């Protein structure tokens, strides 16, 4: 038994490092495909959508500060229905984990380690995440907090340095071209924020669950702000038409950016090193969330035994996409389906719980098993 230990800063750090992941590399491409020069705007709208989703999830979790998502969903809509929902969530996050790992593997095999088989990079990354998930939620929070500054600083540095080559005219007109496509792009970008669902596992272990809203807003605004900055930097340097030609514009941006006085002529190697950490924390969160939910679904006290049990399934799912184009199609559609699971479903739960006047104990400072 450990006490509730996670602070607001830690919770925010978990959110930020969960959100920033593989998605950063292709993000400007998604945004530009949706809105041309309006890419920063469409990113902002996507972030807004994600903020709304996260706020609703946070409100729901704060209603039941001592229960996990699985437990209170059963309280709200009954056992059988809630179990279907929980199974869907588990499947979704295990797929998300495997797609993250696969996207990581594809980037590495295309751009850096060209003769290393993609299977090896994927399994190494998954193994790393699997080993790390054998810790409890407190250690989980510490790992995220440790990596948090490491993610933020280099990305901001690259964005700032790339401004040397930026042209404002590329960002005009700010509202983009086609409002219809914008809606779709908004959903695609909001889907990059689905890792925030990890908050439902964090809140039951927070010192003061009543402050969870502060953490979630800070977390998503920092990550969302960073996303907008990256998109704006990429579009202003390359122009929207050129970005459509690039698979990973952010990586290309790092390639085109040099440190002053030619200390480093291209920053892509440095950027990739940081990006591996970002991918790891994202993978870690979704993997952790999956096994955490499985253990709760089966009413187990421990989630550790699932760490390695899940590994082969996730790995095989990761290897299913036949090629990189198909992989991105799958990622986009899985992401959009995921919005139903991570935003629409909790929203329904919230309204039903309000209608049925269900809520958990508001007592905050009691001893809780962090593994629950």
């Amino acid at each position: 038994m450990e006490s509730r230990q996670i602070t607001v800063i830690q919770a925010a750090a978990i959110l930020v490092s969960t959100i920033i992941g593989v998605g950063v590399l292709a993000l400007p491409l998604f945004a530009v495909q949706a809105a041309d020069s309006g890419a920063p705007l469409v990113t902002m709208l996507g972030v807004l959508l994600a903020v709304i989703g996260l706020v609703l999830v946070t409100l729901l979790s704060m209603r039941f500060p001592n229960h996990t998502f699985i437990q209170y969903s059963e309280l709200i809509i009954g056992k059988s229905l809630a179990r279907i929902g929980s199974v869907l969530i588990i499947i979704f996050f295990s797929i998300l984990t495997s797609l993250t790992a696969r996207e990581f593997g594809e980037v590495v095999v295309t751009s850096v380690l060209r003769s290393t088989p993609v299977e090896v990079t994927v399994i190494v990354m998954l193994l790393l995440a699997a080993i790390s998930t054998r810790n409890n939620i407190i250690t989980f929070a510490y790992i995220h907090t440790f990596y948090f500054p490491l993610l933020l600083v280099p990305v901001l540095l690259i964005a700032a340095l790339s401004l040397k080559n930026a042209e404002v005219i590329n960002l005009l007109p700010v509202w983009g071209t086609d409002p219809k496509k914008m809606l779709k792009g908004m959903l695609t970008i909001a889907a990059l924020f689905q890792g925030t669902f990890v908050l439902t596992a964090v809140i039951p272990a927070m010192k003061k669950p009543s402050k969870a809203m502060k953490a979630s807003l800070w977390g998503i605004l920092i990550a969302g702000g960073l996303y907008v900055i990256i998109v704006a930097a990429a579009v202003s340097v390359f122009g929207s038409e050129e970005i459509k030609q690039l698979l990973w514009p952010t990586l290309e941006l790092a390639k085109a950016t040099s440190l002053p006085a030619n200390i480093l002529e291209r920053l892509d190697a440095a950027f990739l090193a940081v990006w591996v950490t970002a991918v790891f924390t994202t993978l870690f969160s979704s993997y952790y969330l999956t096994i955490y939910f499985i253990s709760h679904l089966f009413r187990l006290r421990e989630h550790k035994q699932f760490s390695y049990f899940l590994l082969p399934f996730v790995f095989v799912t990761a290897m299913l996409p036949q090629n990189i184009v198909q992989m991105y199609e799958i990622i986009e559609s899985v992401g959009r389906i995921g919005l139903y699971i991570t935003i629409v479903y909790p929203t329904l739960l919230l309204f039903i719980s309000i209608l049925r006047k269900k809520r958990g104990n508001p007592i905050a400072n009691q001893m809780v098993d962090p593994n629950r």
Partner: protein
Amino acid sequence: MRIKWWIPIVKAICCLCLVVPFLTGCWDRLEIEERAVVLGVSIDAVSSDDANEEEDEVSHISGSIPAPSKGMVRVAVQIALPGRIPLGPGEGGGGKGSAGETVWVIDVVGHSIDDAFMNLQQQVSSKLFFGHLRVIVVSEKLARRGLENVNDYFRRNPEVRRMAWLMVAKGNAIKFMTATPQLERVPALYLMSTLDEGIRMGKFPKDYIGIFWSNVSKKGQEGFLPYVEMKKEQNVGIIGLAYFNDAKMVGATKPLEIAGYLGVKGVNPAGYRVYIQLDGAQESVMTNATHRRSKIKVSIIDNVPQFTIDIAIELNLEAKLNENVKINDPRILQSIEKKQEGLSVLFYSNLIKKTQVKGADIFGFGEYVRAFKPQFWHAHVKTAEGWRSMYKESKFEVKVSLKIRRIGMKAQ
């Protein structure tokens, strides 16, 4: 406990197994002497008849995997010789310093860039490595045929940097690979520094391969590349801008017209000198631009974009041809300014007209329309082709204001 005698052995084996991952190397390990570091590439268009005889069937074979019918190319590369390139200004490793000994130049033919590189790889024992590629020279003939394949290949290759230079050579491009300029030990680096220094002296715009690609992609802008020529003593001269329609070269400017481009775009620092004839050819002075500023405004009149270009340039007086002109009077300086303003307006307008004829908007005026008049753009232009024809009809008004600030160390 005699049964468990094997336990320590198993434990030891387990420990050994744990050590194994730490002893492995990198999967993609490639020692520096095992890679052929390509510093420069030249690409020429060649006639298919000569080339077919020379070429081996490496990436195609007649019958089952036929070669494409597009014209063939001759690719030459400059490969750095490990150990021969002196590091730093001091004499390192006993290199004699002549350029021919630091690099190895080989050429092959192929149906496309990739095909040629494969033919080359078939001959070179080490793996070709493009991470340090700094200069790509294409011949004018190939540029006029179209650079789609060149752009595609180098954009797809993750090793190539966006800060490399792509340039168009007058005549054969391969000469630039075999040349041995004296200033730099590595010929490719000399080519590169010619252009990099050009940027710093205000003689050339920033036009790395990445920027060229961006410009080609943009709907309201066309790409342009440095147009170079082999001069005496195996030296390299920048003789203008080669301008493009999409990936096809359609024309080239004169060297001074680079200054025109820089003026219209307001690129700093400024660094071109021009003659100003005052009264008759005898009484000329020469001025040097030091600072440029430009403002481009667009308005739509009768469904045709009308651009107003405000150019302001600061000058220094550099030289005069004879002593008849005294320049110790502000009024004379003013008359020189007036004279040059008139000439400049004509000069800039002519340059714009020249690109208009070909529909090659290297200045990116179309981007201004797209950015500031989006409704007009969506109603009348929409695509890059749309802008190409619209550009030909666009109207331009050039306003130039010049200020001579300094006259050097001589009093009159």
